[in-house]
């Protein structure tokens, strides 16, 4: 990995975004390398050192077999509790080095993943009510993988590591070590604390608290220099959950910006991805494309060429139907949402005695989302008609659309109201400016609709610079 040493100083001086991206790509190669090292670990050796704390650290980052029994899942939970207890509640900071740069992410990721699958599994057992034996075990152990304890671990890691204070210091261009304290100055705590923030983003989103999810990231700047950007999976996860939360808050422009950013990045690094990692990334990639399709239907906008092509290849037909709107688009919205949403969970144990009252959380969130979809479903039709005129009589348009004038009045109001959206400018992810995001605007004078369309001026300077760069490249 000799190129690494060569890269480091360049990264420090250069501020140009392309160079940064190259550095990221190089980092990614390093990560792929890391995966290779792990595969070579001798399983026999691991077993011998089972008591060894280093081995436990490695163990905690390993995925659990997905067919694991309840007993194994409980055991895994206890192992995590013991490990985090050791890390958090020993006398003073424990003297351990994380096995690798990516370890902290893997641990937090796996911890939340197991929590997520456990909750989903428990809810399924309650709904299906055909496995009395497991239902009884789950009923007797309501505190296994409890939501409060998962949140507690994440918050404790954040607090112990003073990561919030460290990130704030970094923003002020000060030395984070000056505020890190005895724990946060250690690699192990700093990394765990940092990735716990991203873990929280994910947990809040899984519980349906989208604004809190975004608030969690207040201290992390979403740019290529962010620490998470060095770990591909973390980078990917962060943008997926931030984008999804934005979408659920009806901030479609921001959601598209998030998804686009990460998808362009993935397409740039595609060539070095190893097969196993590539599978999970492909799946999330497709999910994010589906979410972009939904957001673009709500908020038509020009996409990056790479993404536009990928979207047409993968969901071309669906996108067309979404953009056409109307009742035919509803099942497509549903299909794509189900395919692309996180596996929502309910934080409390289900009611095992009354299976019929346990509603799948996905259905719950979907039904709320679909309400907004239905409210908006005529917008594409209305807009496509309005684009043809500068003035139009409301009753005449109602005739074209075959609706009553008063219904059309409501549709016009809805469509106009939705063109105003909060859009991020800087500071926290929840902040933003209320802007008009549509190029089409109209106002009513009684039954007369006045329509105006914003014209795009030609981007001459952009064109000139692009061609200049190409010619001299």
């Amino acid at each position, binding site marked *: 990995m000799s190129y690494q040493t060569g890269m480091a100083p360049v990264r420090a001086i250069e501020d140009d975004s392309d160079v940064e991206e190259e550095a990221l790509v190089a980092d990614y190669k390093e990560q792929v390398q890391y995966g290779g090292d792990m595969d070579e670990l001798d399983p026999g050796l691991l077993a011998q050192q089972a008591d060894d704390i280093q081995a436990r650290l490695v163990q905690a980052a390993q995925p659990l077999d997905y067919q694991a029994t309840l007993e194994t899942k409980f055991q895994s939970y206890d192992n995590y509790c013991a490990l985090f207890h050791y890390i958090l509640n020993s006398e003073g900071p424990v003297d351990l080095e994380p096995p690798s740069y990516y370890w902290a992410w893997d641990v937090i990721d796996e911890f939340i993943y197991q929590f997520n699958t456990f909750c989903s599994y428990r809810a399924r057992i309650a709904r299906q009510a055909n496995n009395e034996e497991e239902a009884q075990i789950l009923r007797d152990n309501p505190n296994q993988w409890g939501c409060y304890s998962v949140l507690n671990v994440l918050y404790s890691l954040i607090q112990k590591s003073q990561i919030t204070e460290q990130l704030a210091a970094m923003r002020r261009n000060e030395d984070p070590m000056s505020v890190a304290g005895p724990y946060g100055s250690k690699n192990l705590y700093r990394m765990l604390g940092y990735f716990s923030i991203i873990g929280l983003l994910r947990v809040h989103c899984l519980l349906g608290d989208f604004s809190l999810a975004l608030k969690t990231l207040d201290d992390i700047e979403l740019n290529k220099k962010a620490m998470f950007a060095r770990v591909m999976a973390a980078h990917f996860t962060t943008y997926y959950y931030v984008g999804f939360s934005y979408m659920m*808050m009806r901030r479609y422009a921001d959601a598209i910006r998030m998804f686009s950013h990460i998808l362009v990045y993935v397409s740039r690094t595609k060539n070095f991805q190893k097969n196993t990692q590539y599978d999970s990334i492909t799946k999330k990639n497709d999910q994010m494309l589906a979410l972009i399709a939904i957001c673009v239907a709500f908020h038509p906008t020009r996409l990056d060429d790479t993404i536009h092509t990928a979207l047409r290849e993968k969901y071309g037909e669906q996108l067309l139907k979404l953009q056409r709107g109307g009742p035919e688009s509803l099942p497509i919205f549903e299909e794509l949402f189900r395919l692309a949403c996180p596996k929502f969970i309910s934080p409390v144990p289900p009611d095992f005695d009354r299976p019929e*009252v346990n509603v799948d959380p996905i259905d719950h969130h979907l039904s709320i989302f679909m309400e907004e979809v239905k409210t908006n479903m005529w917008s594409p039709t209305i807009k496509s008609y309005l684009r043809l005129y500068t003035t139009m009589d409301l009753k005449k348009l109602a005739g074209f659309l075959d609706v009553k004038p008063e219904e059309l009045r409501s549709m*016009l109001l809805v469509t106009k109201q939705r063109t105003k959206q909060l859009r991020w400018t800087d500071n926290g992810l929840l902040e933003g400016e209320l802007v008009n995001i549509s190029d089409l605007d109209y106002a009513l004078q009684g039954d007369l609709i006045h329509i105006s369309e914003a014209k795009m001026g030609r981007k001459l300077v952009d064109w000139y610079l692009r061609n200049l760069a190409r010619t*001299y490249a």
Partner: protein
Amino acid sequence: MNGEDPQERPEQIRNIINGLERYNPQAADILEAYLQQQCEEKFCDCNANRVLLKLYQLNPDRIKDEVITNILVKAMTQFPSAQFDLALHLLSPSHSNPGPNSSSDLAEAVSKLRVLNSQLEGAQYARFWATLDSDDIYADLTTDIAGFEEMIRLRIAQLVSQAFREVQTSVLEEWLGLDSEDEVKKFVIETCGWKVDDNGIVHVPKNPDNEAKKTEIREDVTVDMFSRVIKRSWEDSA
């Protein structure tokens, strides 16, 4: 009007929202009292109310039905926005989606409120007032919220002003849920400060939203855009 983070929010509530205190089940009492205050003093703090819903989500034994419905009604007054939905997402799935076999009072109330909210979100204001009148349960659900109808009416008027330059009194009569043209005239003149002409047409003053002006989006050019070209020419000549 800021229903997400209002100025009225006291220090104590701010600390709960921003700290770990938000997970303390005991904070529910304080937040419930604060909700009561919002209901009486006609302001809305959706952010704080979501903290309360979150506590209920994690501690279902603390749930008070009327608190949940009050939060939803409060969030509804913020239409059109995602506030109602964001609150709904925090409810237990069984509370917001009554199944055929199960129907608690809370689930029924929530589904009634969802109907109302979707009418407001869908700008079907005439239907909203009709629905509100159709069932006594709505009076029960909104009784704690001081000035509920008045707030909705004002909000509708504000939204109308953002889309209309002129509008017939008859349309407003239905949309504002008023009983006669005279009441409409009184409302738009006294409360909104608009004018009504002899033909019963209401004139809304000009504002940036009801103008629908033609605009041209121009390219933003900054010095930074040239940095690479300049750098290159510097390097080449050096």
